[in-house]
């Protein structure tokens, strides 16, 4: 469970996130939605601690991010998995080495154990052994995303952050990735927070949704209630979806 309390973030005097509060529960896929440039990435990176919040607080199961020591913050980070917009695999390492990397760094497992664990994670995201020795530049975008998920879950995280996990993917691959994140969240009871502007994601895995516009939280709910939302900009944001639905009806 992660709780954001009145989080504010500015860059050189320009405030991007204007006091956002929200509760993200464990074992649920929590979505942050909003149009491009609305501040989703900045909010996510602030929640995860890559950017320090200017005010407010972020609680990880009650542990306040700002009052943690350097040491405690380091160990908290080992409970966090993150999936970046561009996968962010280390490009000098192979697929397998990428997934083994956090294990190499933070566990005392033997080489064999680490490899077994990495392969189990790769197996979980359906990466076959032919790809183990390839570099990230040699595999497709969808595969990169899956390898990045495998890396993110290698240390069995309690928290998973995903920044636009299916941007740049075809709809079919995108829904595979969504499903994978959803299943893993349930399987390991992870607190998962996902940035997206993809309507399909909203409707398929939007168990809990917060909608932000220009750095303000404008609405909160779930996929069941979102079409009834009474927020003008959200309605506009959803209009492609509503149009498609009314066409069908």
């Amino acid at each position: 469970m992660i709780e954001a309390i009145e989080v504010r973030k500015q860059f050189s005097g320009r405030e991007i996130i204007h006091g956002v509060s929200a509760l993200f529960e464990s074992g649920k896929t929590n979505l942050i939605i909003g149009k491009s440039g609305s501040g989703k990435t900045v909010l996510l990176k602030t929640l995860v601690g890559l950017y320090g919040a200017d005010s407010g607080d972020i609680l990880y199961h009650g542990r306040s991010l700002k009052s943690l020591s350097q040491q405690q913050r380091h160990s908290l980070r080992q409970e966090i998995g993150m999936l970046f917009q561009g996968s962010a695999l280390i490009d000098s390492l192979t697929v397998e080495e990428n997934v083994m990397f956090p294990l190499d760094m933070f566990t005392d497992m033997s080489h064999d154990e680490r490899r077994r664990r990495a392969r189990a994670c790769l197996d979980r995201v359906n990466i076959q052994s032919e790809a183990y020795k390839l570099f990230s530049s040699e595999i497709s975008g969808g595969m990169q995303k899956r390898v990045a998920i495998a890396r993110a879950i290698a240390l069995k995280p309690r928290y998973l952050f995903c920044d636009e996990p299916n941007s740049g993917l075809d709809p079919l691959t995108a829904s595979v990735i969504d499903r994978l994140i959803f299943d893993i969240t349930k399987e390991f009871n992870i607190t998962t927070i996902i940035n997206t502007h993809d309507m399909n994601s909203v409707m398929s895995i939007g168990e809990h949704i917060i909608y932000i516009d220009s750095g303000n939280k404008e609405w909160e709910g779930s996929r069941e209630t979102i079409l009834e939302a009474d927020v003008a900009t959200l309605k506009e944001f959803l209009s492609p979806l509503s149009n498609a639905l009314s066409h069908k009806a």
Partner: protein
Amino acid sequence: MVRSFFFHLGRYVLFLRQMFRRPEKWSIFGRRIVVEIEKLGVDSLGIVVVISLFVGAVITIQTATNLENPFIPRYSVGTASRESILLEFSSTIVCLILAGKIGSNISSEIGTMRITEQIDALEIMGVNSVGYLVSPKVIAMIVSVPILVIFSMFIGIVGGWMSGGYTGLVPSDDYIHGIQVAFRPYYVTYSLVKSTLFAFVISTVASYWGFYVKGGALEVGRASTKTVVTSSIVILIINLLITQIWLN
């Protein structure tokens, strides 16, 4: 201009401090150093050899033409060439060339990792990204560059010997006698100390510019340019200071 100078200087110092944190795993750290020595040091050997051979040859020909005087013995061409190569060429000029080759390589590699969020990914895993990415490069450079400089001295002198003999300006025996006359070993020490400093400057300045890239491919290119310009200027200034202090 002045403000931006102090801004970068301050951030550079803070950046350096992160380099000295204890690595997560010594074994991984050691392996990273070996990889970087290969990538930065061994892979630069070729260019150092070629440049040293040619410049050594040119220095000798120029010195010989300048010293064309019956009262100056032929062998002194060998001595003068040796001094130029040992004191200046093999440390400063070679390091300026390495600032171009290795500096731009380091800053574009780290810059690309920054804009593709690989550095964020390291940080989020709890890895000290500066310690993991930068420190092995700095150590690799401090180890490799003095060795490259010694190579360059040797090859440069050989280049001079070859051109002197080939053009007939300096007969082989004179040259070989000349390079042994009044040899001061501390000139070599002086060059090696200089080049160790230069190695530190090149690797840290390049890493610094790469690490703080914001934006896209264009900014990565810009960081490479800044690296070459900044590290060249710093090398020249350090060179002047050290020469003043040491050789005066």
